């Protein structure tokens, strides 16, 4: 256990080692460790942010779907309304058309019956003339008795 100059040598070695460690070993390793810690922290924060964003996006998507569904319902409602309107209009149109056609038919019938009456009246007149001829059994001078015949035809 004799103390000798080894003490000084070892103390100097120790001092050199401390200096070297402080200068060249500790700072770069600590810097690397701290930088990695920062990176990991940033990564975790980014993951958290992404998770939040995903949640927001999900909420937005759900909102969009809800809106689209409402719109679709509105469109269907409007279509139904329009359909009802069209059907109603078609019905009233059909009724109006029917009435118009009926009126036209009635007018035609009237005019036709009028014509028939006219034709009948003329035929009756001719018959009456021929009947009168037969009754009188003589030739009537058409030219002389025209005014008389016309008056007769008018009376019928």
């Amino acid at each position, binding site marked *: 256990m004799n103390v000798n100059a080894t003490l000084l040598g070892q103390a100097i070695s120790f001092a050199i080692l401390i200096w070297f460690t402080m200068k060249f070993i*500790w700072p770069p390793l600590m810097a690397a460790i701290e930088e*990695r810690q920062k990176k990991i922290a940033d990564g975790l924060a980014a993951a958290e942010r992404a998770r939040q964003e995903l949640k927001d996006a999900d909420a937005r998507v759900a909102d969009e779907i809800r809106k689209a569904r409402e719109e679709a319902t509105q469109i269907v409602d409007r279509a139904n309304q329009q359909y009802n309107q069209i059907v109603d209009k078609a019905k009233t149109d059909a009724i109006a058309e029917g009435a118009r056609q009926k009126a036209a038919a009635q007018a035609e019938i009237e005019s036709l019956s009028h014509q028939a009456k006219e034709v009948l009246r003329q035929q009756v007149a001719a018959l009456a003339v021929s009947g009168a001829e037969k009754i009188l059994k003589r030739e009537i001078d058409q030219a002389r008795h025209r005014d008389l015949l016309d008056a007769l035809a008018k009376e019928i």
Partner: protein
Amino acid sequence: MSTETSGGGGLTEYITHHLTHNVVKVGEGFWSVNFDSVIVSAVLGLIFIVWFSLKARKATAGVPSKGQAFVEMVIEFVDGQVKDVFHGDRRFIAPLALTIFMWVFLMNAMDLLPLDLIGSIAGLVGGPEFAHHFYFRAVPTADVNTTFAMSITVFFIIIFYSIKAKGAGGFTKELFTAPFHAHGTGAKIILAPANFFLNLVEYLSKPVSLAMRLFGNMYAGELVFMLISGLMITAIGFVPGVLINAGWAIFHILIIGLQAFIFMVLTVVYISMAHEHH
């Protein structure tokens, strides 16, 4: 510590041989150097700084290699220990703690080398007569010079931090006025010697206990290895000797790390006490 002249039987001579340093005389008395301690500690110190500085130069903040991860683990362990004890700028204290931990650990680890490894190599190289006069103690921390060199360096760092924290005047004043505080000049003068004596003991006990704890553990560990190898010489003692040797070596793996850790933590504690003293 006389050399092989003590004789007195095989085991005693064996142990004495193994406990003798390879001394290189530079001058008289104090001026000689334990060559073995200096060379082994220097080589281990070089291994430490080369290994760590290579990893430090290649250090990336990305995915670390296994080697870098290991070095970072050591660094973070030491930094965590220092952070727990020392509150302040760690740019000097943490590297100091790392140096102490790694260097002492490596030096302690030399305890696990086979006792006769270096002697046998010397025998192979220079023959039995050379080996007989070749002394080599492979564990630098089982040499008081190494442990005291470290603890005295730490002692100066403690003094430096005390003066830095309190100022030269405050440090000197506290040497004479604490721990017994007095009011009035007369009482202060009376208490000054007692205070100074207590402070002296307190300050000096730190390097002494640091150095002696590490030295004692390593020296005793070495000695027990030698006694066990003495047991292994006999035919009956060989098998139990091997078993005990293995057991002691396994136990020593714990001691190696533990002593390095204790030296480191106590250094940091002493410095933080000096730093934070009011």
